[in-house]
C-alpha cells in the first residue's frame, strides 16, 4: 500500500478507513470540548471555581478504563460497527446534559459518564484491522490514530470561535458543546448504515475468550498483578479528591472504594485462574516472552499519552492566563500541541519500523519528551509567545511520536497476545492522565510541566532497564520439505476448521 492510496476513496477499505477516522475524530472532539471553553464557563457560571474545572478535567478521563473493558466485551459480541454507532449516540446524552447542566452534581456526573467516550479508540482500531491486509495494517492504524487524535486540536481551534462569535452571549459555550454532541449523534446514526464490519462476506468470528493476559513465569505473574492494580485502583485517587473537595459524603466514598477494591480483586482472581494452570504445566521455552517489556511499554504510554491527555486539558487555560490572551487566541495556540498529531504519531510508528532498532527509537523519544517538558516548565510571560509555541510544538512532536513508537513495538512482543498487551498499555495512558490531572489540582502549571518531565524521565529509565529489542519469529520457522507435506498440513487445517 502506498501513501497516495488514501485518495482512492472508491476502494471500500479506504472508504472504511476515512469513515472510521472521522468517527474517532468526532468522539475526540466531544471528549475535549471543555478545555477550550473553560474560561468562558468560569465567566458565565458564577458558582464555578477554577478548582472545580480541574476536577472536571480528572472526571473527563476517569471512567475511560472501565469503559474500555466493557467496550472490549461488546466488540466481541456485536462487532465494531454497532458498538461505534451506539457509543456515539449514547454518549451524546451526557454531553447534552453537561451543556445545559445547572448544578454541580449534574456537571460532575455527566462529565464522568462522558469520559467513557475515550474507549472509542479501541473500537476504531478493531474496525481498521478487519479491513486491511496484514502488510498495510500498520500504516492504516497509524493514519487512523493520528488523524483521530487530531480531534482534540480541532476542538481547541474551533470551539471558542463557535461559542463566542457564532452563538455569543452568556450561554454561547453551552450551545457550542451541545452542537458537537448533536453532530456526534447524527454521525453515529450515519455510521451504522454507511459501513460494514470488514469487506463483504467476512465472517465475524468470535475470538477465543481471554479473561486475563497469559504470562511465562511465576515472577512475571507477580509483576502482572502489581501492574494490574493501578488500572482500576487509580480511580481511588479520584474518589478521594472528590470527597476532599466536599462533593461526596463519607458513606458514598466508602461505597466507591469498596466497588473499586472488588473490581481489582476480581481482576487478580482472573489472572490467577488463567495463569496458575499454565505455569504449573510449564511454558515451553520458545513460547516465553518477557513481561518486563510490557511493563516498560505501560510506563511509556503512561508518560506520553497520559501526558498528552493531561496537557490538552490544561493548555488553553495556561496560555490564556500566562500571556493574557483572548479565549479564541489561546485555543488556537494551545491547539498547536495536538495539531502535530497529524504527522507526528504516524511518523513515530514509521521511524520505529524504519530504524534497525526499535528500542533505541523508543528511548530517544522518551528522552525527547523529558527535555521538551523540562523546557515548557521554564516558560513564563517574559518569553515571547512565538518561542513558547515553538517549544510546545517540539514537545508535542516527541510526545505523539512516542505514542506511535509504543504501538510500533507492541505487535512484536508476542503476536498471539497483541490485543491484550495493547489494551493494557492503552489503559495505562488513561491511568497516566488521571494521576497527572490529580497532581495538577495541587500545583502550578510550571511545576506541573516539571512533574511530567520527571515522569517521562522515569519511564526512560524503566525502558533502559526492561525493554528488550523484540526478536520476532526467530523461533518459528517452517521448513517446507516438499509439496506433499504442505498438502498434509492443509488437510489437517481443514479438518481442524471443520471440527471447531
Amino acid at each position, binding site marked *: 500500500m*502506498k*501513501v*497516495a492510496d488514501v*485518495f*482512492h476513496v472508491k476502494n471500500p477499505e479506504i472508504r472504511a478507513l476515512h469513515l472510521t477516522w472521522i468517527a474517532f475524530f468526532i468522539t475526540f472532539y466531544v471528549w475535549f470540548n471543555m478545555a477550550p471553553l473553560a474560561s468562558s464557563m468560569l465567566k458565565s457560571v458564577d458558582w464555578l471555581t477554577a478548582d472545580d474545572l480541574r476536577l472536571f478535567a480528572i472526571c473527563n478521563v476517569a471512567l475511560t478504563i472501565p469503559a474500555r473493558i466493557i467496550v472490549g466485551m461488546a466488540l466481541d459480541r456485536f462487532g465494531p460497527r454497532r458498538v461505534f454507532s451506539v457509543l456515539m449516540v449514547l454518549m451524546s446524552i451526557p454531553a447534552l446534559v453537561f451543556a445545559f447542566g445547572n448544578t454541580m452534581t449534574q456537571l460532575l456526573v455527566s462529565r464522568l459518564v462522558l469520559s467513557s467516550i475515550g474507549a472509542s479508540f479501541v473500537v476504531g*482500531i*478493531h474496525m481498521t*484491522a*478487519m479491513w*486491511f*491486509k*496484514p*502488510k498495510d*495494517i*500498520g*500504516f492504516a*492504524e497509524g493514519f487512523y490514530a493520528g488523524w483521530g487524535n487530531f480531534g482534540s486540536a480541532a476542538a481547541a481551534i474551533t470551539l471558542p470561535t463557535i461559542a463566542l462569535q457564532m452563538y455569543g452571549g452568556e450561554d454561547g459555550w453551552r450551545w457550542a458543546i451541545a452542537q458537537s454532541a448533536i453532530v456526534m449523534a447524527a454521525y453515529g446514526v450515519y455510521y451504522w448504515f454507511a459501513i460494514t464490519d470488514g469487506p463483504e462476506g467476512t465472517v465475524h*468470528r468470535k*475470538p477465543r475468550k481471554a479473561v486475563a493476559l497469559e504470562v511465562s513465569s511465576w515472577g512475571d505473574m507477580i509483576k502482572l498483578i502489581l501492574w494490574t492494580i493501578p488500572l482500576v485502583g487509580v480511580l481511588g485517587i479520584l474518589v478521594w479528591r472528590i470527597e476532599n473537595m466536599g462533593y461526596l459524603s463519607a458513606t458514598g466514598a466508602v461505597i466507591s472504594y469498596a466497588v473499586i477494591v472488588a473490581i481489582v480483586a476480581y481482576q487478580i482472581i482472573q489472572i490467577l485462574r488463567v495463569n496458575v494452570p499454565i505455569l504449573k504445566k510449564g511454558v515451553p521455552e520458545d513460547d516465553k516472552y518477557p513481561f518486563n517489556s510490557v511493563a516498560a511499554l505501560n510506563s511509556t504510554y503512561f508518560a506520553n499519552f497520559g501526558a498528552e491527555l493531561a496537557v490538552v486539558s490544561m493548555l488553553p487555560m495556561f496560555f490564556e492566563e500566562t500571556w493574557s490572551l483572548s479565549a479564541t487566541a489561546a485555543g488556537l495556540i494551545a491547539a498547536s500541541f495536538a495539531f502535530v498529531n497529524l504527522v507526528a504519531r504516524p511518523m513515530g*510508528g*514509521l*521511524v520505529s*519500523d*524504519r*530504524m*534497525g532498532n526499535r528500542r533505541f527509537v523508543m528511548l530517544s523519544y522518551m528522552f525527547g519528551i523529558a527535555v521538551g517538558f523540562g523546557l515548557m516548565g521554564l516558560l513564563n510571560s517574559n518569553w515571547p509567545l512565538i518561542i513558547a509555541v515553538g517549544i510546545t510544538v517540539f514537545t508535542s512532536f516527541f510526545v505523539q511520536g512516542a505514542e506511535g513508537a509504543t*504501538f*510500533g513495538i*507492541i*505487535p*512484536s512482543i508476542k*503476536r*498471539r*497476545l*497483541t*490485543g*491484550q498487551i*495493547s489494551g493494557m498499555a492503552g489503559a495505562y495512558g488513561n491511568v497516566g492522565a488521571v494521576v497527572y490531572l490529580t497532581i495538577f489540582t495541587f500545583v502550578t502549571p510550571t511545576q506541573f510541566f516539571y512533574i511530567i518531565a520527571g515522569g517521562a524521565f522515569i519511564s526512560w529509565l524503566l525502558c533502559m532497564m526492561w525493554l528488550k529489542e523484540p526478536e*520476532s*519469529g*526467530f523461533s*518459528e*520457522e*517452517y*521448513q*517446507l520439505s*516438499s*509439496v506433499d507435506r*504442505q498438502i498434509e*498440513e*492443509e488437510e489437517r487445517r481443514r479438518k481442524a476448521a471443520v471440527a471447531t
Partner: protein
Amino acid sequence: MKIMIAYDGSRNARLALAQTITMFRDLKPVITLVAVAENPRDITSGNEDMFQEEVADLKKHIAEAMEVCEQEQISAENMLLEGDARKMLLFAAEKKIHPDMLVIARHSHEPDGGFIARSLTYFVDELDYMTFGSVSSFLARRIQCPLLILPSR
C-alpha cells in the same frame, strides 16, 4: 555455489528466479528460496485469519517455485520465516544459510494517480531509500555476502 533468493511470489520475484537460473546454471548452484511472512503491524488480534491466509499463499508460491527448479534440474531448498522481512532476511543469510550470493528483486512502485498522488509516492519512496526502509536498501547496507539486486521491469 550457494544462492539465496528472497522470494515472495510476486512477478518480480519470479523473474528474478528465472534470471538467476539462466545466469548461474553452469555453476551448479544450490538455490535456497527464503520467504518471509510479514508480521501484521496490528495492535488488535482481529487480523489473525488474514495472516494465516498470507502464510498459506507464501507456501503455495514457494511450492510452485520449487517445481520450477525441479523442472530446470536445479537443486533447491526453501525456508519460510516470520517477522520483519528485512531483519529476517538478514538473519537467515547471516545465521542460517551462509550463501555465496543473495539475490533480491527490487519492488516496482509504478506511481499512478494524479500529480499529487505521484509526487507523494515519489517522496515517500525516496524517504524509504534514505532511511533504509525498503528491503533492498536495508540489505545493501548491512549484508556481508555479495548481493545481486535485480531491477524490476
